[in-house]
């Protein structure tokens, strides 16, 4: 298990190094080079030269790459062009909001997706199955920003059931512990704050969960269908075990293997989806920041975001791989 972990960590650093190379090349290839992005349009040539020197752009490419790497390792992504603040600070401040939103969306997707997928598999060929499968196909086909906007118009603006924007009602007096508002509210005992945060979370989380939900439903259904036909499930039945034991210990524990992989992969794409969802609800997470960065062509900010997301994604995948080892003894022993 240890050797496996070390090997995976090595692979991970190689992947990240490759990614940094890609990003560096991307940054260099941006129209007009990076200095144009950091200077106002009417900058003079001398300003330009000074910046080039300051950024080390007159040095050989590999020195520049070294510098680039060094700055990344120090989490120095430069300053945002639109706010002028360090990008790392901006991202760090906004990260908890996105994490909270993504977790909420994943909670919906997993909590609803696995039971639905299981039921669809068990009732294969019935209307429930048909409805679930077509619903999940449809779910992957709705542009997420449109879904978010429609949810907002219908449930927040027209019906007024839920708030339209932000993470809390304006002026709410909250205590910041983890940055996750719901969790903070519960920890500090400010349950009204927690409830307020939940209400603000519901619509964006539903919008963001649409694709992961659809994927989890279908993968669960396929996985359960595969597993219930296995001989060991028949053995479990032949033992006369309670249906709940057969379902939990024999069907679901095996069916979870592919589902766990997919959940890990989906977490990465959730951050991308958050860009679209957060902008609709002005949620104030990384997504809103990136939306702004994209529309204002704030490339250093964009780069910082891509890097953070990629690290997140790769780390999550590592965790999934390791948890796979826990879930599946065959992987654990093979190492």
């Amino acid at each position: 298990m240890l050797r496996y972990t070390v090997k995976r960590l090595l692979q991970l650093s190689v992947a990240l190094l490759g990614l940094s190379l890609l990003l560096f090349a991307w940054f260099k290839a941006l129209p007009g080079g990076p200095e144009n992005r950091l200077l106002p349009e009417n900058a003079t040539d001398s300003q330009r030269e000074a910046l080039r020197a300051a950024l080390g752009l007159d040095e050989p490419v590999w020195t520049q790459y070294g510098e680039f790497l060094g700055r990344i390792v120090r989490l120095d992504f430069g300053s945002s062009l639109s706010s002028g603040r360090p990008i790392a600070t901006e991202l760090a401040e906004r990260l908890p909001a996105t994490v909270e939103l993504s977790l909420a969306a994943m909670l919906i997707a997993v909590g609803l997706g696995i039971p639905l997928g299981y039921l669809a598999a068990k009732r294969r060929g019935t209307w429930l199955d048909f409805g679930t499968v077509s619903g999940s196909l449809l779910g992957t086909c709705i542009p997420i920003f449109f879904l978010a906007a429609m949810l907002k118009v219908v449930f927040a603006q027209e019906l007024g059931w839920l708030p339209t924007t932000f993470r809390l009602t304006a002026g709410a007096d909250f205590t910041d512990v983890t940055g996750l508002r719901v969790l903070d509210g519960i920890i500090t005992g400010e349950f009204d704050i927690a409830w307020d945060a939940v209400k603000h979370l519901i619509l964006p989380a539903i919008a963001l969960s649409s694709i992961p939900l659809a994927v989890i439903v279908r993968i669960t259904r396929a996985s359960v269908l595969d597993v219930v036909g296995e001989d060991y499930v028949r053995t479990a039945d032949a033992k006369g075990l309670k249906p709940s034991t057969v379902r939990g210990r024999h069907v679901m524990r095996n069916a979870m293997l592919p589902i766990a992989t997919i959940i890990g992969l989906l977490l990465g794409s959730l951050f991308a989806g958050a860009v679209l969802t957060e902008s609709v609800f002005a949620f104030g997470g990384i997504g809103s920041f990136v939306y702004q960065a994209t529309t204002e062509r704030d490339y250093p900010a964009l780069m910082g975001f891509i890097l953070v997301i990629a690290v997140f994604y790769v780390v999550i995948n590592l965790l999934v791989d390791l948890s796979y080892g826990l879930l599946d003894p065959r992987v654990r022993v093979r190492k």
Partner: protein
Amino acid sequence: MALLEVEDLRVAFGASTAVDGVSFSVAEGQVVGLVGESGCGKSVTSLAIMGLLPKGRGRRARRPVPAAAAEPVGSGLKATTAAPQSITASGGRSRGGADVDGRAVFDGTDLLSLAPAAMRRRRGKDLAMVFQDPLSSLNPVVPIGRQITEVLERHRGLKGDKASKEAAHLLDRVGIPDPARRLKEYPHQLSGGMRQRVLIAIAVACAPRLLIADEPTTALDVTIQAQILELLKDLVETEGTALLMITHDLGVVAGICDEVNVLYSGRVVESAPVRELFARPTHPYTIGLLGSIPRLDLPIHEPLTPIRGSIADVIRWHDGCAFAPRCDRVAASCVEGEPALVGAVHAHRCVMAEEVA
């Protein structure tokens, strides 16, 4: 009185019939063989007794409608291509589910009419089953110890240390060395023979009165096969468990069984005590089976005589003898209606039996 009395068991998957009126009995402490080619309905029979077939639409399998209504007269000998057994080989994975009819009286109760929950309380306790492929029949992600203790927990109420101790004892009983350590291992860490021993340990965990073994040696090496048969024989003799042995291997039958039922196309075509069957096989199909295995007492150049055709060449039993299309001794009377099972101790289903013998 017999421990298990199967009467006129019928199993159909949708329109195709897999088991077509099978009757036999297993007495207390007796070893009964159910023999036939793959697809003859023997596995389905065992799964039906255990109540492990996927449920059908609630319709019970009926006797087929009279020939005149179903098929034009005169199509008697023509082999129908629809192989009724095609889906049963996978152990009833078919989506449609099985329609089961008939009776399987176990110790005075008809198992087939028991409610699912009542049947679940009996499975693994009063009657247990050992499957063919030991690797795929064990859950790959659960330690084998847990797979044994869960039966003990369910049927004998043993928990924690008591259950583990009993599980180790069971592993020891089926001949697995160092049982305490093995409990924590996973199926893929064991050899094929060991896995089959684990499956047997699971099956005998609650001292069932009837053990059903479905081709328990087929997936194993020949040397391991003998060991597993020895183990089964030993269990049967010391515990007094009745054993229903399902196999295509006449060698296994000769080695372990007291009584044999030969199945063809979903029906018993011959049943006899084991010595009697080997000494005086009566049904041409049984004769064919015996002719297609190598014998040590014949010169090695003597060619084997395979049964021609395949089990897919079938006519329906109510039109005549289902084996007729493959039979060397077929006569006109073979396809004039359903042949009856005649004889008491040594019974056979062949109208030409007198001439054959």
